[in-house]
Structures are given as C-alpha cells and as structure tokens.
C-alpha cells in the first residue's frame, strides 16, 4: 500500500528490493560475527572437523604439487626420447618372470649400435653401487658407472668443469673419471678437482671433469648423478669385473617417428637376444613414460586416500556445524521472533543463519590453512613445493560450501518459525 500511496514506480520498487537484500546481508554478517564472538570457544571447537579436512586437502595438494615438480626435474635429467634397455623392467613386472633372464651384455649393446640405424646414440652403462671414493683423508660413497663418450648425448648433460672422456681414453680404458657435483664438492671442498687423483675402489683415477648439480631424483640423491662417478667402460670392466648386466641407453634420431623407432629397436634387440617369435621380451624397455605412470599411480592413490579422509572429516565437520546451528537457532528463538515482529521476512532469517554457518566454516578453513602452512614448509624440506594459491582458494570455497550445506536445514527451521510461537518461546 505504501508503494501505491507514495507512487513508487516499478523500477524504484526493484531498487528498493535490492537494497533490502543488501542490508539484510550486511545485518546477517554482523549477527554472525556477534554470535561467534559471543561463543568463541564453542565456535572454534565446532570447526575442528573442517580444520582437519582443510589441512588434509592442502597438504595433499602440496605433496602432489611437490611430486609433480620433482618428477619434472627428474624426467628432464633422464633426457627425453631416451630408451633404457635393461635386464629388468623398472616397474610392474613380476619377479618370477624376470629372474631367469639372461644378462644384457656389452657385446649385445655393440651389436645393437651396429644394427640400429635409427639411433643417434647407443650407450652401454655398467654400474656398481656404493663404491668408496677417496681423496687424501676424505672419502664418500657413491655409485660408479662405466660408459662411453656418447653418454653425453644420451644423458644430455655436459660437465660444468673440465670435459667428458674422449673416444681414445674410452677405448684404451684410461683411468680417468668425471665426478658428480656432490662427490667433487665433498672430496675437494674448495680445491679445484680437475687434474687431481682420486681412489675409486682402491684404484687411482685422474679427475677430468665435474658434472653440474642435478638435484635429487624423485626425492632421493641415490639415483642422482650428483653422488656418482663415471669412468670409461673398458676400465670399469677390468676393475669391477665384466660379469654383470649392463643398461643400454638409446637415443633415437629426431627425424624418425617415435613408434617406428621403438618397434625397430625392440625387433633388433630380440634378434640379438634370440627371443623366439611369439614369446615375450626377455628384457625391459624403459622410458620416462614409466615414471609418469608410476607418478600418476602415486598421485591417484594419494588423491583417493586424501579424498576419503577429507570427505569423512568434512562430513563430521558438517554435522558438527549443523548441530551447533540447531543449538544456535534454538537459543535465539526469541530473537528470531523479535526480528520477525519487527518485519524480518523469512528470507532475512534464512540468510542470517546461512551466513553464520558459512562464517564459522570459513573461520575453520582459515584455521586449517594456518595449521597446514607451517606443515607445508616441512614438506618443502623433503619435496620442493609450496602451497599453491589455488589450494588456498579451493579450501576456502570448500569451507563455505560445507557451511552453506550444513546450515541450510537449521536456517530453514528458523525461517519457517511462526512469529507468535517464536516470541512465546522461553
């Protein structure tokens, strides 16, 4: 009637409606903060489930992010488009199938190099684990690899100082070595390693090069070149014995289609290893793609576990919020009645309690973030990573959503109260 009397137009009426909603919203936020402020302890305790949920979500995301970064780095250290032929499959083969496989020999590698025309480089690598390397009174443990000059091509790394050994040194089996960054740093500290003599497995080698720092591989330094030393294959076989299986690193020419090249390589290597047609390969064809698969497997496992924990704690948290909201509605029945008597519509009351629930949950989300941030710094020590911004935003939206969902039923209860009943409530 007021609208008719004062002659408001339809547009004015609409603007008025929007303003009312806006003021109701502001009042809702005001009430929420007052209510939470009046029950600080209760509100904080209520958010526990949300806090746990948010901590799990953020840490999970941080770990996945960290693994991703680590994987990217590690993959790039493997070199792209390189196949690793080996007695073993890196992942996913049953041990009883592979234990009777014959060793991969240097001769097989040489034959493969001869026959495989699509390869840019075919490099045998023989390795022995945890040899002692000494310089004066200092010593370190690390893997020692025997290989050939083309290793520079397949690995894609060149020494930061000095050089890799040349074909002459390689064929002659000269006692020279290239050290990983950490090995050189630990043995020589501030001294220049180039030209110095180190003892590896009791034999003397002249240092001719040092690789640049590579960083950990999948979170461990064990597979990183940083902790290893490289010597000519000829020398390696004499010193550490030839009775071992070698790996063959194959880098394909870039002008050959990947699939064709792989096909041809496997075909030739089967011939070299005399695998009868129709039988499975008796060697592993490994690529960085395997790593990717393993990584995806790890990520989805973390994802599933994290999702379960998160859902569970958010469910518990949500029920907690719903419970406390019912209490809040009950406690403030008279206030609801008063507000209704003063002209609050159902919508305004609904709003008020939804905002309160969402605010409590957002509070929980913020506490969760505050807890998980230092934890993510600890994770950062193991897996280089940081809490991405999208995780922060995701956490807060999850919190608000949980708040709205668990607040909706109590809020409706409040909104639907008859003013006369609410006022009479003691």
């Amino acid at each position: 009637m007021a609208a008719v009397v004062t002659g408001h137009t339809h547009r004015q009426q609409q603007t008025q409606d929007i303003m009312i909603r806006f003021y109701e919203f502001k009042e809702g936020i005001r009430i929420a903060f007052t209510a939470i402020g009046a029950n600080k302890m209760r509100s904080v305790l209520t958010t526990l489930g949300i806090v746990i949920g948010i901590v799990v979500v953020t840490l999970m995301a941080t770990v996945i992010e960290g693994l991703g970064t680590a994987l990217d780095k590690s993959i790039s250290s493997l070199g792209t488009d390189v196949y690793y032929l080996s007695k073993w499959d890196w992942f996913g083969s049953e041990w009883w199938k592979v234990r009777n496989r014959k060793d991969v020999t240097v001769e097989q590698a040489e034959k493969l190099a001869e026959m495989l025309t699509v390869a840019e480089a075919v490099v045998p690598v023989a390795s022995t684990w945890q040899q002692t390397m000494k310089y004066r009174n200092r010593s370190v443990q690390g893997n020692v690899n025997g290989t050939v000059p083309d290793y520079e091509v397949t690995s894609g790394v060149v020494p930061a100082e000095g050089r890799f050994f040349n074909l002459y040194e390689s064929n002659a089996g000269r006692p020279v070595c290239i050290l990983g960054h950490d090995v050189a740093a630990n043995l020589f500290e501030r001294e220049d390693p180039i030209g110095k003599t180190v003892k590896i497995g009791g034999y003397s080698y002249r240092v001719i090069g040092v690789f640049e720092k590579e960083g950990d591989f999948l979170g461990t330094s064990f597979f990183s070149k940083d902790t290893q030393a490289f010597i000519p294959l000829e020398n390696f076989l004499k010193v550490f014995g030839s009775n071992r299986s070698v790996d063959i690193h194959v880098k394909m020419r870039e002008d050959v289609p990947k699939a064709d090249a792989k096909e041809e390589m496997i075909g030739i290597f089967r011939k070299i290893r005399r695998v009868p047609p129709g039988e499975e390969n008796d060697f592993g064809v490994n690529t960085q793609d395997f790593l990717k698969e393993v990584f995806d497997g790890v990520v989805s496992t973390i994802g599933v576990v994290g999702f379960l924990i998160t859902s569970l704690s958010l469910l518990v948290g949500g029920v907690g919020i719903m419970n406390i909201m019912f209490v809040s509605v009950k406690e403030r029945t008279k206030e609801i009645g008063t507000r209704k008597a003063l002209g609050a519509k159902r919508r305004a009351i609904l709003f008020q309690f939804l905002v309160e629930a969402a605010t409590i949950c957002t509070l929980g989300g913020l506490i969760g973030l505050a807890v998980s941030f230092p934890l993510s710094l600890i994770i950062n020590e193991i897996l280089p990573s940081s809490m991405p911004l999208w995780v922060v935003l995701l956490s807060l939206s999850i919190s608000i959503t949980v708040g709205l969902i668990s607040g909706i039923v109590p809020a409706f209860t409040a909104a639907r109260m008859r003013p006369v009943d609410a006022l009479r409530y003691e």
Partner: protein
Amino acid sequence: MPLIHIKDVVKTYDMGAELVHALSGVSVDIHANEYVSIMGPSGSGKSTLMNVLGCLDTPTSGLYEFAGENVGELDDNQLAEIRNRRIGFVFQTFNLLPRSTALHNVELPLIYAGVPAHDRRDRAAEALSSVGLGDRMTHKPNELSGGQRQRVAIARALVNRPSIILADEPTGNLDSKTGIEIMQLFSDLHRAGNTIILVTHEEDIAAHSHRIIRLFDGKVASDQMVETPLSYARQGVAEE
C-alpha cells in the same frame, strides 16, 4: 473507515485431545488516534487478540481488515511488511538484542525496510532522542535500566512511523514509578497523534487509555469509553 476492523474473529488451537477456543467471535473496530486498552484475566484471549491484531498470528476464521486491506489474504512476506511498516511492537520483556547498542536496536526495523545506512542512523537517533535517550545511544541493553530499555523498545516501535503501536504489558517488568513514566510516554505519543493499543491486566494501567475493551472467555465482555482518562487528567492538571 476504521483503521482496524475485525469481525467474528475465531481462533482455535488444536491441542491434540481437545480444541481450545482462544477467541470465539470477536468483533472490534479501532479508529486512528484511539488509545485502547484490551483487558481481561489470563486465558481470556487478550494475548491471542493482540497477536492477531499485530499480524503475528492469523485467525482461524473471521475478517480482519487493516486500513481497508484484508489481512487474511496476505502471505508471510506481506504480513512481515505490514508488521515492519504499519505496526510498532512494545513487549513486556523489551525484546532487545542483548549484544547490540541502543542505536542498532532501534535501527533494526529500518534495516528490514531497506532504509539507507545514514538515513537509518539519523532516524534511529531522532527516535531515541524523542524518548529521552539521546545520550544513551551507544549503550548496550545490559548497561541500561529497565525503564531505559523499555524506552529503547518504544523508540524502536516508533522509528518506522507505524500506524499503530501495540504494547503488550509494557510495564509488567518495571517498578511502579518507572511504569508511570512509561505510561506518561505513551500518553505523549497518543497526544502526538499515534494510535495505541495496550494489552494489560492492570486497571491502573488501563486507566490511562481512553477506551477499554474487556475480554472474557474469548468474547468481548464490554467495550467502554473511559470518562476521565488518567492521561487527560494529568494534562488537565498541567493546563490549570
């Protein structure tokens, strides 16, 4: 045209085992600028009548016209709007928001009416000043005396310039001296042109009004004008 026109209003509560007739056929007309008391012993239906008049409750049957508008045909939101713009409530227990200042309490009806913030503040401050609490605006209810609280509530009832002020036992929680002060305030409001409906069971309080409607067993037992209302008497004294 009467401001309030109710005819044959019946309110029945279904208490499960039996039906309770809180109002069994009440007809009353109240005009603008009347000062009416609704009296009756407990169980007489006076609270129910007040709830119906205040659009807090809807009658089971019967007609209720507020300023010519049939209230029975309005939905929840429209009723809320009527309460917001046309009716100012004063409760026995004050019903202030405990954690809000006097000013914010008075602003509440304006918030639900969509009045802009600065306007709201001015009007609330003005209303508080008009009940003599201009210097208590930032106080919270627990920092105010009972009489002051009821004044805040009256300011809140006035702030949206309603057609009627509906007061339910407004002095019930006050000592007699403060009660008289509050009744004085109502008399002033009436003189200023407001329509006041008072629900009370105290003759002393009802004596301030100009018309007393007595209910008994859900029916109007008597509806009489007061010959010399206390408010007039005092006014008379003042004028002499």
